[in-house]
């Protein structure tokens, strides 16, 4: 293509202008978190704080409801790690069964899985709550974590797609050498699908970190609250004096998400482009 300076400039003005518009709210949130609470809206028009202060962060970090913000982060991490391990490993296990093994009824169960993928989870919200209430699981992380160990349809689908790209000659060679299916799975397939495991882990991390409905339903004590519920507490106690702290802790809650995004961007982009995740 010929080099056209005018067209080139116009292109970048449009693309960069749109990009700026997209991130402007986030930049505004970041800048506001360094302003004194009383000034946030008085000076909403001017982006850069006239004086930079850290007190919003120190005040916010002390937490709310009698617990420090560190507690909420720890609670979130426990939920994320336990649920992610369960979802990724069980999904890989199930995906191997669908992608590589021939058995009666496999296409039936595969169809069921694809329907589950599209099933609105609102339908199971009420009965699951009743079930967990009867099991005396309320006020524990079990209702949030345990179901993750039974495979997540999105991840199963993603991993099936991935396993199918691995040549099956590899399986056959291993089988001839006397390798059983379980060994085949964890010795040969698991290492080969590492990229898909990474993608699934990243998305599981995102979904669990931001999940609100699970904690709203099942966790009723501030000592167990994850970050999402802690932020909601800030909002419920919404007064002029703690806007700054709420903004600061909102930024803190986004840091791990953005950090993971920049660290693993390639996996994320591939995950979405190949399977339509999220």
């Amino acid at each position, binding site marked *: 293509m010929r080099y056209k300076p005018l067209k080139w400039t116009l*292109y970048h003005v*449009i*693309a960069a202008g*749109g*990009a700026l518009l*997209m*991130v402007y*709210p986030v930049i*505004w*949130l970041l800048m506001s978190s360094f302003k004194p609470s009383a000034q946030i*809206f008085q000076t*909403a*028009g001017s982006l850069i704080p006239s004086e930079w202060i850290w007190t919003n962060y120190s005040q916010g970090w002390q937490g709310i409801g009698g617990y420090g913000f560190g507690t909420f982060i720890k609670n979130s991490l426990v939920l994320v790690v336990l649920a992610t391990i369960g979802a990724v490993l*069980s999904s890989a*296990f*199930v995906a191997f*069964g*669908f992608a590589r*093994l*021939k058995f*009666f009824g496999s296409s039936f169960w595969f169809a069921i*899985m694809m329907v*589950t993928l*599209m*099933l*609105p989870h609102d*339908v*199971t*919200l*009420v*009965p699951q*709550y*009743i*079930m967990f209430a009867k099991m005396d699981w309320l006020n524990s992380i079990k209702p949030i974590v345990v179901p993750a*160990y*039974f*495979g997540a349809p999105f991840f*199963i689908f993603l991993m099936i797609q991935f396993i199918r790209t691995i040549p099956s000659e590899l399986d056959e060679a291993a089988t001839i050498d006397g390798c059983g299916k379980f060994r085949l799975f964890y010795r040969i397939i698991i290492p080969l699908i590492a990229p898909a495991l990474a993608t699934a882990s990243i998305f599981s991390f*995102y*979904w669990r970190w*931001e999940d*609100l*409905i699970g904690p*709203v*339903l099942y966790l009723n004590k501030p000592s167990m609250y994850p970050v*999402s519920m802690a*932020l*909601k507490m*800030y*909002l419920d106690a919404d007064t002029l004096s703690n*806007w700054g702290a709420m903004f600061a802790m*909102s930024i803190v*809650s*986004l840091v791990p998400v*953005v950090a993971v995004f920049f660290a693993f961007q390639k996996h994320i*982009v591939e995950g*979405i*482009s190949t399977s*339509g*995740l999220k």
Partner: protein
Amino acid sequence: MRVAWKNQLTGYAFISPFVIGFLVFILVPSCVSLYLSFTSYDLFTSPRWIGLDNYKEMFFEDSKYWQSLKVTLIYVFMGVPLRLAFALAIAMLLNTAAKAVGVYRTIYYLPSIIGGSVAVSIMWRNIYGDEGIINGLLNFFGVDSVRWFAEPFAALWMLISLSVWQFGSSMLIFLAGLKNIPSELYEAAGVDGAGAVRRFFSITLPMLTPIMLFNTILQTIGAFLTFTPAYIISKGEGGPLDGTLLYSLYLFRQGFVYFDMGYASAMAWVMLIIVAIFTAILFATSKFWVHYESKEG
């Protein structure tokens, strides 16, 4: 014969987590939910069979139900098409070899990554505040401030704009699709003298329709289920004047604020049927608008 049996068992052993999870966490709860929808149940006393009363109340007596269905349909049918339109427009803009494209792609995608979080809903609440940056922007262009939290439709627009802001994941999917369109098609069209508009409607759009079908279905279902932003932006109430009372939020309030579990279950089943109908319509009409390689066209 023994080997065949063993193969069957191994297969089921591998998919057993899904099968058990499906039965315990999805199939049985769904059946229970269907039963409860014909009962009055508050979790503490045993369910009382009331036949179709929940459904009658929903359709004929509960104006809040119709309001929540209305705002949800507006939310879905404004939000999803706008989101897909932005996604496609920006994907086409970024489908060039320019060096900065990677950076742009990252920035446009970032909102999708953080968009579902409580932090972003709080941020959204504040940029639409009376003194927030949205009103600042309106004033800059000489438009009067809007009181976003006083007008039902203005408040719903906050939710729609938050959903559109997260067009990045669809954009990535479209970008992948655009890269798969053979450039010979465009070259041939160029030789035939087709202009940019013609090329878009005759090549780009038809070639993307298979991706669009899948994308539209998932986005529509996701939009129907939106909960967090409505819950955070309206502080759990769905106000003003039920303007942000999305279906999931109303269902949540019926089930877990008023503890009317029977009614909430009936709502869930109607939602399931609505979603199933939309999915069926999209699939059934797909042969008219989805372009498949194998066919002539």
